[in-house]
């Protein structure tokens, strides 16, 4: 009985013993932790700074740090996609948005709302719970980073276009819809109103100008 109990406990102990512990980190782990600390610090500055443009610039640091983490996890293609899409376009879009809404340069005292302390309590509680659960669940789990890279461009293209073609194409349709929607939403009403009323008068059967023109007239 005792022997079977020990044997049932054994796999976890053996797994913990056969792998390196926290006290003998590898170089990849040290690099991961250091970059992770920098990423987390940049993210914290992003959500707490009172200068809006600085928040966007610190977001670049956070997203670039995440790209380095992807590289350390051998997901090369995703790392470069992260750099291209997030650092290259999303942050630029955010900066454009900040400029177009005439965000104040310099400190703005009303960047945070009144429920800051409630938000802090919720975030700290969620962080404590999540970290506790995650550490408790994956204490004895190690990632094997050796062997062929699992996220190289060749491997990514292979699995993306061999197994994920249909979601890929559906996603391109979604991107097209988002593009059209963004253009429709951000079109200025006053400038297009004279152009929109003319085809409505000439072609009363057309549906699309009819649906959008009264909305633009009210603006």
């Amino acid at each position, binding site marked *: 009985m005792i022997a079977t109990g020990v044997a049932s406990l054994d796999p976890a102990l053996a797994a913990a013993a056969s792998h390196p512990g926290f006290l003998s980190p590898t170089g990849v782990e040290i690099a*991961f932790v250091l970059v992770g600390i920098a990423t987390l610090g940049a993210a914290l500055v*992003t959500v707490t700074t009172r200068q809006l443009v600085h928040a966007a610039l610190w977001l670049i640091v956070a997203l670039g740090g*995440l790209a380095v983490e992807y590289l350390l996890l051998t997901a090369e293609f995703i790392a470069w996609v992260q750099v291209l899409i997030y650092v290259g376009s999303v942050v630029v879009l*955010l900066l454009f948005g900040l400029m177009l809404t005439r965000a104040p340069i310099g400190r703005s005292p009303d960047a945070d709302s009144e429920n800051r302390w409630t938000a802090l309590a919720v975030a700290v509680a969620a962080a404590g719970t999540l970290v506790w659960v995650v550490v408790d669940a994956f204490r004895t789990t190690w990632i094997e980073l050796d062997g062929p890279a699992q996220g190289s461009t060749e491997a990514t293209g292979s699995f993306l276009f061999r197994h994920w073609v249909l979601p890929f194409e559906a996603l391109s349709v979604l991107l097209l819809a988002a593009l059209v929607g963004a253009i429709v939403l951000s079109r200025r009403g006053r400038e297009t109103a004279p152009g929109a009323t003319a085809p409505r008068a000439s072609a009363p059967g057309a549906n699309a100008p009819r649906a959008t023109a009264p909305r633009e007239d*009210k603006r």
Partner: protein
Amino acid sequence: MHLAYPAVLAALLFCTGLYGVLARRNAILVLMSVELMLNAVNLNLVAFDVWLRDALHSGQALTLFTIAIAAAEIGIGLAIVLAVYRNRASSDIDRLRDTAETDEAEELPDDPDDESDAEAPEDQATAPAGKAKKAEATA
């Protein structure tokens, strides 16, 4: 590499984004925090994909899809923020209270720290005429 490192980093990044979404007032800063939360999810997906060595590589494929959807989301979100800014001359989400049901919630939080040029058309558009004028402005 220990799996706890990326998992803990993702959890902390997610909670940082959660704080930003709840505490920020400018709509664009809220969008930045949403990006942080999405990136935390991406890090989890990549880490678990590398750990499990899935034959289909579901984690990495879903990460790419999440990145694309996040790009679409940020485009649509910024278009909505710009449309609201054109109508209200403000990107302050605390002032968007058109769907509030009670009369107390209708009262706008006044903060005198705003700049005067941004304040004038905003008060003209939202404050005095109340619900009817606001509904007309967003129609």
